[in-house]
């Protein structure tokens, strides 16, 4: 497996993927994910023209051709955005499709003359990592270092231009130069990338690593590093898979592995991920049920004027809620000494009584707030308060109490139970 071709492909894709990811991070953050895609497509005519006019096998010609086409496309998009009433996504699509169409046209011309196949010109469309030569590898290494160096050098400029371009201009930073450098870096990254993954999949290499990395970190350097790591892992994975399986292309596998990282990050990421949001929803439901049970017991005590016990069945009847999870919740309440189990059912402990009182208090305070401050009718407020009693924090409670001037009773003339001290 560790033959020279494999090592060559692996090194090439590693360099390419990690450096593209670092450059693409800024497009991702600026919400210009499509611009990289447009530039990738727009490079095609430049690359083919370089092939026609110069020596197609020399990477230098291709890079110059790509650079020129990429810059024209970039300034074309900017020009259309600024000088016409077209929206930015339209400008991007217009340039992308026109350039790409022209590129395909040129390609079919070259292929008719028969030179195309020899040079493997079609590798630019879908990429062909296996075709990486030693010469390519030297160029890749040089370019990857240039890209990383460029980002390091312009880090402050890229960061500020991405976050707040007006401020960058206001403090007199050379915004034109910074933007140009960024475009050149993007074009270079894409030029290298399209030889491996092709024009069509290039956007994935620029954007997906950052999309995955952003879910895990909130620091820009951290995000750049993580994006490069994801990209390297994908390059590694993609190269191995395509080497292990017969006749498998490397580029699409790299992109697929990246996509896997992207989607798993969306699911697994802390806080913003799908899983932790589900967990949060479950814990909110659980909190609601606990508090409702304590409230129920407190209400029963309030009506009876003395401590009472309720069986689980009676609780279900009273709350009109499902039995589902009730036993477990009661068990937990018991474990936390909020209720005790007696022969005739569950009763509040002092701790549980205080907690039940808090929920009832929040309910009644919120009902009062709604009628007093928002002018809502007394018969409309109960459902709202059923939710808010579980949400309101002690700080907000204090605010409400202060704003309403330590009220004694709610809109239904029930007393608002404060903690006696």
């Amino acid at each position, binding site marked *: 497996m560790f033959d020279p071709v494999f090592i060559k492909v692996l090194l090439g894709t590693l360099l390419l993927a990690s450096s593209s990811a670092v450059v693409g991070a800024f497009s991702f*953050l600026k*919400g210009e994910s499509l611009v990289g895609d447009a530039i990738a497509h727009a490079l095609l005519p430049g690359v083919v023209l370089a092939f026609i006019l110069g020596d197609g096998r020399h990477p230098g010609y291709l890079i110059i051709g790509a650079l020129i086409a990429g810059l024209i496309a970039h300034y074309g998009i900017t020009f259309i955005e600024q000088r016409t*009433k077209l929206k930015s996504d339209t400008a991007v699509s217009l340039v992308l499709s026109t350039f790409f169409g022209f590129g395909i046209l040129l390609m079919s011309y070259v292929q008719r003359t028969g030179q195309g196949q020899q040079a493997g010109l079609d590798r630019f469309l879908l990429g062909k990592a296996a075709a990486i030569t030693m010469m390519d590898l030297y160029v890749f290494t040089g370019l990857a270092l240039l890209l990383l160096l460029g980002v390091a*050098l*312009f880090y*402050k*400029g890229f*960061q*500020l231009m*991405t*976050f*707040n371009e*007006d*401020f*960058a*201009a*206001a*403090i*007199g*930073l*050379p915004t034109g130069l910074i933007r140009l450098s960024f475009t050149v870096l993007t074009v270079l990254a894409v030029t290298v990338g399209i030889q491996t993954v092709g024009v069509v999949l290039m956007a994935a290499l620029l954007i997906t690593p950052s999309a995955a990395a*952003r879910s895990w*970190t*909130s*620091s*820009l350097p*951290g*995000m750049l590093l993580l994006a490069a790591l994801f990209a390297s892992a994908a390059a590694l994975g993609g190269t191995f898979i395509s080497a292990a399986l017969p006749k498998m292309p490397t580029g699409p596998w790299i992109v697929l592995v990246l996509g896997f990282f992207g989607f798993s990050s969306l699911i697994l990421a802390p806080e913003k991920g799908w899983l932790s949001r589900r967990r949060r929803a479950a814990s909110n439901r659980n909190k609601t049920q606990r508090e409702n049970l304590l409230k129920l017991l407190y209400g029963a005590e309030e009506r009876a004027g003395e401590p009472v016990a309720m069986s689980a069945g009676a609780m279900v009847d009273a709350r009109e809620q499902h039995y589902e999870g009730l036993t477990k919740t009661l068990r937990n309440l018991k474990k936390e000494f909020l209720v005790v189990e007696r022969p005739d059912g569950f009763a509040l402990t002092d701790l549980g009584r205080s907690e039940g009182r808090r929920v009832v208090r929040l309910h009644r305070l919120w009902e009062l707030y709604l009628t007093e401050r928002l002018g809502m009718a007394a018969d409309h407020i109960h459902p709202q308060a059923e939710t808010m009693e579980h949400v309101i924090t002690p700080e907000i409670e204090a605010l409400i109490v202060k704003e309403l001037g330590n009220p004694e009773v709610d809109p239904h003339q029930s007393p608002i139970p404060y903690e006696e001290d």
Partner: protein
Amino acid sequence: MEKSIEVHNLTVSYHSKPVLWDVDFELPKGKIIGIVGPNGSGKTTMLKTVMGLMKPDSGYTEIFGQPLDKVRERVSYVPQRESVDWDFPADVMDVVLMGRYRKNNLFKRITKEDRRIATEALEKVNLLEFADRQISQLSGGQQQRVFIARSLAQQADIYLMDEPFVGVDAATEDAILKLLRDMKNEGKTVVIVHHDLQTANEYFDWIVLLNTRLVAAGPKEQVFTKELLQEAYGGRLTVLSKLGDLISDTEFPLREPDFKEDQPQG
């Protein structure tokens, strides 16, 4: 009167529609100055033009008697809070440090001195304990204070702020006001774009009333009169806004290309 900002015959358009017509005024130094007017009256455009972010069709502006480029390091700018994406991966300190970025240190690392100044700025807006907080986790008022800290870190002589009181809590409002007064006492000039008439009289020493054209500029006692306010807030001038639409629709140039009025004379 020592002048901070001069605006001369300024006409600016947005998407080829004029939003400022021949505006002309001078502002004093060492005062808290409000640029006041209804929505869409060109206040933000005014500020952006002074900061060189929008090109005027005609006229010019000067700060401390010089073109902006000559005095840039003495000028600080606070954009509208909503103009940036607060989900950007950065913490409070990162943003405040941006106030230390200069053309001549763009390629250099952040120094200890930069950090000291940024820390001091955070202290002034009472956010020091939030230095490591992600900016996405800040409240509106805290975000505004971060922006002000960043501008303090610029250590400028004049501060241009776009709607710093929008969407902030009462505590932040008080904190900002106190800060502004401290700055004034140090001889700094503060120019604030503000849309709320009710508070304008209380906040500012000097007021520029704007509604596409200049309604009035001067000490607040002179400007904050019923007649002038009515003029500024009593709807746009129909003729002016119709003409603006016409110019935008026909893409008519506002000045002939060789018109030379925007050169400073003498």
